[in-house]
């Protein structure tokens, strides 16, 4: 006998908080974001938005929906079973005939597809973006107006900003074939329309390997949308160290600072220190980190639990490679190196 879920029940279910549903499914949610279960995600791409967080979206997979879709996509259940499970979990009354027809047991989120395929990162498209854009007023305000970073440091790192993604996409389409763009890692196709993967306005930070080859890109969102992720990485980018080519300019035994996150790295560089950045302490770019073992390594960890975990993980890694990572202390009450830098330089400017 076919089961039809009443419209009023569907309406109620679609208003449920997707964060609550995610947690019931065993998906860990932090700051309204989670690792996406649909692709090999390492930096949370799944985010929840709306007044009651009743919507979800993965900006990598380009899939989105409400609580019902979330259950369908994550478990593989059909529409009806998903609704029945949600009703049961969240105490939404449904006709007793329905609940007696089918009992949905414990659900398991489908295993994330581990991608062994090395997706191409189009250096041609990346290089074109860098060569044909520069820092906009928004980018300059963030880097120089608010953070007082050294202009030459920013210039040497080829950091640019993009204010309007549509304008960039139009320009790209004039230079590149649409299919090539969609395979570049930068562009996504939603309902026949091409979009830039990065939320704008944003800064773009190019990643280079030790030979100076462009190997990845990261963005830092500069807008007001609180639902937009602050940092984004292209799905095709392997986790790498930021500013790795610096080791070509220093000698073995020289001081080198490691930061967690690019803004701290920019502050260190602006302070005249040699520095590289790990994008996140949850995934270590071990191949790149291994290249650092012959230098005198230092780190100013963030003064929070995540910072403590980061430095302990890195210390452990380097001890295993017979190198000490020296822990440096921030001034009391300061959260991270960038804050310390801003305070010092704000006073200089005054």
């Amino acid at each position, binding site marked *: 006998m076919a089961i039809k879920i009443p419209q009023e029940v569907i309406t109620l279910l679609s208003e449920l908080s997707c964060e609550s549903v995610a947690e019931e499914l065993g998906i860990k949610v932090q700051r309204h974001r989670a690792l996406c279960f649909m692709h090999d995600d390492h930096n949370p791409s799944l985010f929840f938005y709306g007044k009651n967080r009743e919507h979800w979206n993965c900006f990598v997979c380009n899939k989105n929906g409400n609580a019902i879709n979330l259950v369908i996509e994550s478990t593989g259940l059909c529409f009806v079973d998903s609704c029945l499970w949600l009703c049961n979990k969240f105490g939404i009354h449904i006709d007793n005939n329905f609940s007696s027809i089918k009992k949905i047991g414990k659900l398991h989120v489908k295993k994330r597809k581990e991608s062994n395929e090395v997706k191409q990162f189009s250096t041609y498209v990346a290089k074109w973006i860098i060569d044909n854009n520069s820092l906009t007023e928004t980018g300059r305000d963030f880097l120089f107006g608010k953070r007082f970073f050294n202009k030459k440091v920013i210039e040497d790192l080829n950091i640019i900003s993009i204010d309007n993604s549509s304008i960039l996409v139009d320009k790209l389409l004039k230079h590149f074939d649409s299919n090539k763009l969609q395979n570049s890692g930068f562009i996504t196709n939603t309902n026949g329309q091409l979009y830039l993967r990065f939320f704008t306005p944003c800064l773009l930070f190019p990643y280079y390997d030790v030979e100076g080859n462009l190997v990845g890109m990261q963005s830092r969102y500069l807008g007001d949308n609180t639902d937009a992720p602050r940092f984004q990485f292209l799905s095709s980018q392997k986790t790498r160290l930021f500013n790795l080519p610096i080791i070509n300019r220093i000698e073995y035994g020289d001081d080198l600072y490691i930061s967690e996150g690019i803004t701290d790295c920019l502050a260190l560089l602006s302070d005249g220190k040699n520095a590289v950045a790990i994008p996140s302490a949850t995934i270590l770019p071990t191949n790149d980190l291994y290249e650092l073992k012959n230098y005198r390594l230092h780190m100013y960890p963030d003064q929070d639990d995540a910072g403590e975990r980061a430095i302990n993980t890195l*210390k*452990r890694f380097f*001890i*295993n490679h*017979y*190198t*000490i990572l020296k822990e440096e202390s921030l001034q009391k009450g300061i959260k991270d190196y960038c804050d310390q830098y801003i305070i010092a330089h704000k006073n200089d400017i005054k």
Partner: protein
Amino acid sequence: MSYSTDDLFVDIQNHINNQDDTSDSKILSRDFMHKLKVLQFIFYSCESMKNYWNDIDSLRKEVLRSLEENEQLFGYTFFLSLNKNFDYNWNYLRKQMYEYADFISYACIFISYVVEDIIAIIDFSRKNNKYHFVFNEVLDIEIINGASPSINAIINWNNFSELNNVKGGYYLSAKIGSITVLATHREYNASLNKFLCQITELETSNC
């Protein structure tokens, strides 16, 4: 005040960090970085086995299970036995795995007891902080009293092999400078209180 194995390892590293590269302790000790790696391994093993600290047999069983599941390590024993200059045969090297399990287990127990002892010493040092305490000639602990006590934890890298001599317990000395005031063989499952009281009694009788 609470204190953990993680805290102790951080304090050991802090002392290392505060030494410059020409420091005598580093120069004198060959293989310093290699020993530090072994020490790190022991501390992380200890922390991961904390549920077994009170039961040496279960701890040893767990360590042995983990070693037996380590395919790389087993392959390494075979590789070593291929070396003609190496006098030991494969059978011997395989049997050494059981000795290795003992080494790891007792090193973990030792570290767990050191941490407990440090907590007791912190309390003791609030009234009397003339002393520093040396554990099995390999770890030297000094409490620096302040608003929140801090620990100076120094490894004597030249005596690093003493970590293999902690099966039935370990030697603990209370020192003022280089002079040993009192020493004891600290057994597992015994309390440190008697030793600390004896130090106090010695002080009183000397007054």
